[in-house]
Structures are given as C-alpha cells and as structure tokens.
C-alpha cells in the first residue's frame, strides 16, 4: 500500500488506525486476478462499522468468491474529511488503498436513517455524482441494503438498486449478473432491467411515483417488467447458510470488539413498536451445535477473549441452557468470556443469572419500555412489574447493585400517568433493593433510567401513528425529570431533535431526497452524533424546499392511505398490522408466536417462494 495519495494524511489525524487497513483477517487479493471489485461501505465511523455483524457476514461471503475482492470503507471523521478535501485525496478502500470510484460495486449498509448524509458525503468524497441518473456507466453500481431498505424512498434518486431483506443469497446472484453484463459490455439500463427480475431486487428508477393534491401518495407504478411489489429475501436455513469462520480483528478498540454468535433471526414476541421484530420474520433458529462449532472456530481464528450471543431476544432461544453449557465447556478453559445480552425480564433462567453473576462486570439491563401495565399492553411488551421485580431481586441476591432500565417516551396513547409510571417503576426497583434480605452488604443501589423518543417505523402496527412533537416530547421529559425523587435513580433522555429527523426519514417519500441533498450541501453529516447534528441547517433545508417535516412525523395516516413502502413486501400483511394497531388501542395483547400464530403473513416467505420469484401476492 505504499505511495498511496492518502498516506501523508495519516500522520495528521486522530486515530490513524481508522484508515490504514491491514488488520488480521482482512482480505488481500491480486486486483488483476479478480473480475469484480466490491467496496462495502458503512456510513459511519470505523469503530461503529467494525462492530456490525451483517458486514462481517457479507464481507466474508463476497471474498469467499475467487472472482471478487470485497473491501471495507467507512465514513472518514471530520478531521480526515477536511484534509481529503483540502488536498484533493479521493475516498479509498482500506484493503488496497485504491480509490472507491474505480470499483464495480459500491454497497452501502443502511442501518440508521441518521447516516443518510454520510452516504451522500462518501459518494461525493469518492468523486462520484450523487444521483444515479448522473452516473451513466454500468459501473460503479451503487447499491443499498440493511433495515432502512424497507423504505428506501428518501434515498431512491441516489441509488441504482436496493436489496430488501437478507443479503446472503441475493448479493451473490447480483454479482453473477453484473459480471456477465460487464463481460458482455451491456449498458446500465439493460443491466438494471435484468437485475429487477431477480427476486429481492428493487430498482427505484423503474417505479414512477405520483402524488395526491394533499401530498399523500397517489400511485407507485412499476414499468419495464419490474415487479409491482418487491419481496424481501430470507435465508431459509441458518444452519446451512454461510457464517464467517474468521473476522477482521481491528487494532483500534471498536464499540463491539469481540466474537459474535448469531442465535436466530426474527423474534417471537411482536412488540408493536419494534421494527426489527417484524422486519426479520419469520423466526429461524440456528441449532446449538452449529452455534457452538462456529463460535469455537471464530475464537480460535481471532484470539478474541469475549464471545457475545446475538439475537433480538436471547432468553427466547429454545436451547439456551444446553448451548451455554456447551460453550462454557471450552470457553472457560480458554479464558473466553461469554456475554449474554438482550435478556427479557420475564424468562431469564435462574441458572443463567447465577452463571452471569460469576463473570459480572457491568450492570444488568432490562427494557420494560413503558412505565405502566396499560401502556405495556398497548405496545405488546408482555412483561409485568412483578416479573421485572422478581428478576431484579434475584439479581440483587446474586450480588448486582446496578440495574439499567430502558423506556420510551411518546408511545401511542401515552398519558402523563404513563410518564410518571416510569419514575414509579424505577423507584419500586430501588425500594425492592433496600427491602431485599439478601442484598449485597454495605452497598447502595444504582438504577439508571434511559428514555428514548418513540419513532414510528414502517412495517409495524404503529406505522400510521403520529409522532409526538418536539414540544410534547420536551414536556414529557420535563415531567419525568420532575417526578424522579431518589438520588439512587439517574435519568438520561435521548435527544428529541435527532429522533424527529429519524422519524421524518423513516416514513419519508422520494421528495425528501432534495431536502437530504440540500442539508448535506449545507454541511450536515454524522447527524446521529449529538455533537455533530446541525438542526438549524436541517430546518433551513426543509424550509427551502417548502416541505413541512410534520407531514411525515406528526400526521396520523388513515389505514387506507397508500404508504411509500407499500410496494415493498416483507411478508407481513397490512391487514395483520392494522389488526394489531386496533388491538393496541384496546390495550389487548397478542401472545408470542410460540404460544399461538398471530397470522402475520411471514410464513409465506419460505424457501420455495424465494426461488419462485418476487412478484409478491397482494396481501394488503
């Protein structure tokens, strides 16, 4: 990598290790020997991107192909960006140090709406036109995937195509297609038409969008043979699907710097606010044997001293105790710590809690999400106060003195009593500590309450709901602050400004693309970072385009409104979501998928359907 134009910049920035590459496990190939160069871009810092499991899977998978060299690209931090612009150094990929603009595929993983300006910034730093229509060559092809691909409309003009759903199978099919078209010398237009025929490929340029006078959507019409609805891809069998036996081991300390075992995809719970719980359906578990074998290989290959179990709700994994026994049998002698995040307060096995107590390093975290039973029923978070208390009491007996509780503010139907209920629940936990006969001697308790602002998301029963305004969220946060009495409770509230922007883009349409580009041109980037968000620039960008963000955030949609993501098919039927919304208003709960099938529609996403084609059945 010597003599690359970015090398002189490395000595001048904070944390040069973000930009050097060369980590253990990173792929080195001969550029002359591969047919495709693939730049996998994570639109946030190295430390965040390197913590992401999906990137590790897709990176390993693409590099398992001999004809493809997949490299990593992260958003340069502010100091590096300034130097790159000052000296005219274009964005490069970490493995080769080569400029990103020369790659065949530039793939962005879209994890979070607040990274959208970073996407534009990275395209610009690469020296590419932002708009897909202005990139006329077949390559580089700019593609996007990840959870935000379920409503990619605000990004539609910038991307050539999106891959809704899981990427393992479709990204290989797409690379094959591109390789063939590149060899045949076809143009981009023919390639995109062909790509749109692959199940799970959404080519936004092949969909025309019209609007009603009131600003809502009138129609989304596909053309040139593109399917009217694009069905997301799912991997049918997790035991048989690819999982890396090696990770790139960073030198820098990243957010999650450890080996990861994926237990299952999907979630049986159906919490109504949780987009992930619906997007990743149907539930598919990996067998304990596979998890054990993959985890051991990964720890051996990386030298990691920590293994983390990953899923949306670890304590729902059917074979959790046998799995842990199997893991600990080799992890203990090898001095590998096994961490078990994402536990529910209602079903942590006592044996697990005892086991965790032995390696305790931090506090125990639970997410009651709402302060009263009524509101927990509305959101279908089927946890009772008694269950929370009995779990924390067991934790106190096990020596824990710090408990973290996560809540949301601004949930549908929320009243002031529900907000006060958050403080009351935290106080109950404090009281439970002092009344507990087996509490740790000579120590106080620390209850950390963390509240996020509720953001309604597509493909959830709350997708039609208005989001609280900034003023309302501020009032509720102030009310909560005023209600907390104990010094044993510490309270932190998430930045409402960031949540409101997130809310606008989560349920936004294509008209937001202009606002996004304007805001980026004005200097917005790293909007998810409290210290970087420039709300003034965002407000000016919305005003200049005469778009009111409240149209997207604070407006209640009717059940029959055409939504910007209705032409995406995630298996979940609109009928089911509406049924769940109506049950929410009645504070009626829906049991977990294990107890009774709620009829969400995700069962249609079986392997045979993915093979049969993406012309989705109309289930709305």
């Amino acid at each position: 990598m010597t003599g690359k134009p970015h090398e002189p910049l490395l000595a001048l920035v904070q944390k040069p290790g973000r930009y050097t590459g060369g980590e253990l496990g990173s792929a080195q190939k001969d550029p002359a020997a591969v047919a495709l160069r693939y730049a996998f871009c994570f639109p946030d810092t190295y430390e965040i991107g390197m913590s992401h499991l999906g990137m590790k899977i897709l990176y390993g998978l693409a590099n398992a192909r001999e004809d493809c060299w997949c490299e990593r690209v992260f958003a340069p931090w502010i100091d590096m960006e300034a130097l790159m612009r000052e000296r005219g150094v274009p964005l490069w990929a970490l493995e080769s140090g080569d400029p990103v603009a020369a790659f065949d595929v530039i793939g962005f993983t879209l994890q979070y709406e607040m990274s959208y300006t970073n996407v534009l910034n990275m395209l610009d730093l690469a020296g590419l036109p932002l708009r897909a229509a202005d990139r006329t060559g077949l390559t580089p092809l700019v593609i996007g995937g990840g959870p935000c691909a379920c409503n990619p409309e605000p990004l539609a003009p910038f991307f050539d195509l999106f891959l809704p759903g899981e990427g393992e199978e479709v990204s290989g099919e797409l690379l094959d297609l591109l390789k063939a078209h590149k060899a045949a010398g076809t143009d981009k237009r023919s390639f995109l038409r062909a790509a749109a025929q692959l199940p799970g490929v959404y080519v936004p340029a092949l969909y025309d969008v019209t609007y009603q006078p009131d600003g809502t959507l009138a129609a989304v019409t596909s053309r040139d043979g593109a399917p009217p609805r694009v069905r997301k891809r799912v991997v049918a069998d997790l035991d048989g699907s690819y999982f890396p036996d090696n990770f790139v081991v960073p030198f820098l300390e990243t957010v999650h710097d450890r080996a990861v075992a994926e237990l299952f995809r999907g979630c049986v719970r159906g919490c109504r606010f949780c987009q992930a719980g619906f997007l990743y359906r149907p539930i598919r578990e990996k067998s304990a044997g596979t998890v054990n074998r993959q985890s051991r290989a990964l720890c051996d290959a990386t030298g990691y001293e920590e293994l983390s179990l990953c899923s949306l709700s670890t304590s729902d994994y059917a074979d959790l105790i046998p799995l842990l026994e199997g893991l600990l049998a080799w992890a203990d002698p090898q001095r590998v710590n096994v961490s078990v995040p994402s536990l529910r307060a209602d079903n942590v096995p006592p044996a697990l809690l005892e086991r965790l107590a032995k390696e305790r390093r931090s506090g125990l975290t639970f997410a009651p999400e709402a302060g009263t039973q009524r509101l927990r029923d509305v959101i279908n978070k089927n946890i009772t106060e008694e269950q929370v208390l009995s779990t924390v009491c067991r934790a106190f007996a096990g020596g824990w003195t710090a408990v973290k509780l996560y809540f949301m503010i601004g949930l549908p139907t929320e009243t002031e009593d529900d907000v006060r209920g958050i403080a009351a629940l935290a106080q109950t936990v404090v009281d439970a500590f002092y009344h507990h006969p087996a509490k740790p001697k000579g120590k106080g308790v620390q209850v950390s309450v963390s509240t996020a602002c509720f953001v309604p998301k597509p493909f959830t029963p709350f997708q039609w709901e208005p989001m609280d305004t900034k003023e309302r969220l501020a009032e509720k946060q102030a009310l909560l602050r005023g209600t907390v009495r104990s010094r044993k409770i510490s309270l932190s509230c998430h930045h409402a400004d960031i949540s409101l922007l997130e809310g606008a883009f989560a349920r936004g349409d294509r008209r937001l693309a202009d606002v996004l580009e304007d805001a980026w041109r004005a200097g917005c980037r790293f909007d998810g970072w409290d210290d970087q968000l420039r709300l003034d620039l965002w407000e000016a960008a919305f005003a200049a385009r005469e778009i009111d963000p409240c149209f997207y955030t604070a407006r209640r949609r009717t059940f029959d409104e055409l939504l910007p993501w209705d032409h995406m098919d995630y298996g979940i039927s609109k009928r089911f979501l509406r049924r769940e919304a109506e049950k929410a208003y009645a504070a009626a709960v829906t049991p977990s998928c294990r107890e009774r099938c709620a009829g969400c529609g995700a069962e249609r996403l079986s392997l045979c359907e993915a093979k049969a084609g993406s012309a989705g059945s109309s289930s709305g």
Partner: protein
Amino acid sequence: MRPVRIWWSKAGRAKYISHLDTVRAMTRAVRRAGIPLWYTEGFHPHPYLTFPLPLPLGQESLREPMDLRIETDLPDGEILTRLAAALPEGLAALEVTAPVLGPGDIAAADYRIYIPFPAPEEAAAWTARAGERLAAGGLTAAKIGKQGHRKVEKEISLSALLSAYRLAAEGSAARLTVRLAAGSEQNCNPALLLEALDAPCGAEICRTGLLDKTGAPWR
C-alpha cells in the same frame, strides 16, 4: 511458570497502531498462537504480558521487546514459529530469549530517521542548518509533564539527552541517525528533536535498538 522475552518488529502501516492497540493485538496473537499464557492469580486473572519500552504512534522499529510468562516449558523455537504465524501484517516475531536485564536497565535507544524534501537543495539547506544547531548544543523542547495530578509544561534539554548523531543530506532527503536517552528515568521521543530542528512533516522514524547504561545492547 517461565518468563520469556519475545523480540518483534513493526513496519509499514502497522506503525499507525498505538501502543495500547499493539498490546491488545499482541495479546490476541499470543492467544491465537496457542501459547499457554500464565495468568495472574486473584479475583480478576489477567495474562502477564508487558512491553519494557512503549513505541510511539507513527514510528517503526527493527527490534522491540515484549515480556511474557508462560505456563509450560514450550521450547523457544516453537513459541517463535507459532507466534510468527499468528501475527498481523507489519508485526513480525524475530527471536525468543530469556530476559537478562530488567526494564529499568534501559538507558538509551538508537533511531534511524529519514526526512524527505521536495528538492535536493532544500534537503541540503535544512541539513546544514540542523547540523549547526546540533553541534552548537543547547537545543530545548517543551514537554508536558505531571506534577502530582496537575499537568505542567516543562522545558527539557534535548542536547543533554542526545549522546551521538550522524546527519547527512542524500538526494532530496536528509538522513539522521541518533542515540537518545530512553527508559523510565529519562526518555526522549525523537519527534521532539525533529520539531526542535524545524524538520518538515512526513519524517519516517525507525527505532533500531535499545541500549543499557554501558552502551551495550539491552538484552
């Protein structure tokens, strides 16, 4: 339990790995290599693995020591082979020895410094000026030190910490080899010397060896 000293080198883009990140990378490499580390006893057992003289960020080294304690008597040759296979790009394992001297016996270090210039004339001019200033003595630098918990800026005499040097222009670059005080009592980062000599950005610094109080190689 057996103490071993592993000698290693750092080159290329690995020079951008900070000291703490190098410690972590080495610990993981030793684990991958299957070298049976000895762990401290107590409530939070941790492996015994220390670096007698941290290498600053951005500098290469031809030969650095790392001390560790292992549980079994794995032969030195086997430790070296296994570790060499487990290290990431830019870090190399050179030799395994028994520790002879302690970290406190490190007194000086040799550095090889390459300073590029846009043109030979500029290299020659800088070399002449820097040569005069080195010969005259009295070079100083501001260094952030600690007084209790407070951070204080103090002036240190670079000339007193510098025991030998050779400086020459060579095409459009200057080459400086220098011996500077190193270790726990007095330590001088060569970057401070370059700054005092008004060297341009982009100098390549490589530590070539450590010495004891007698000027012999630290072992």
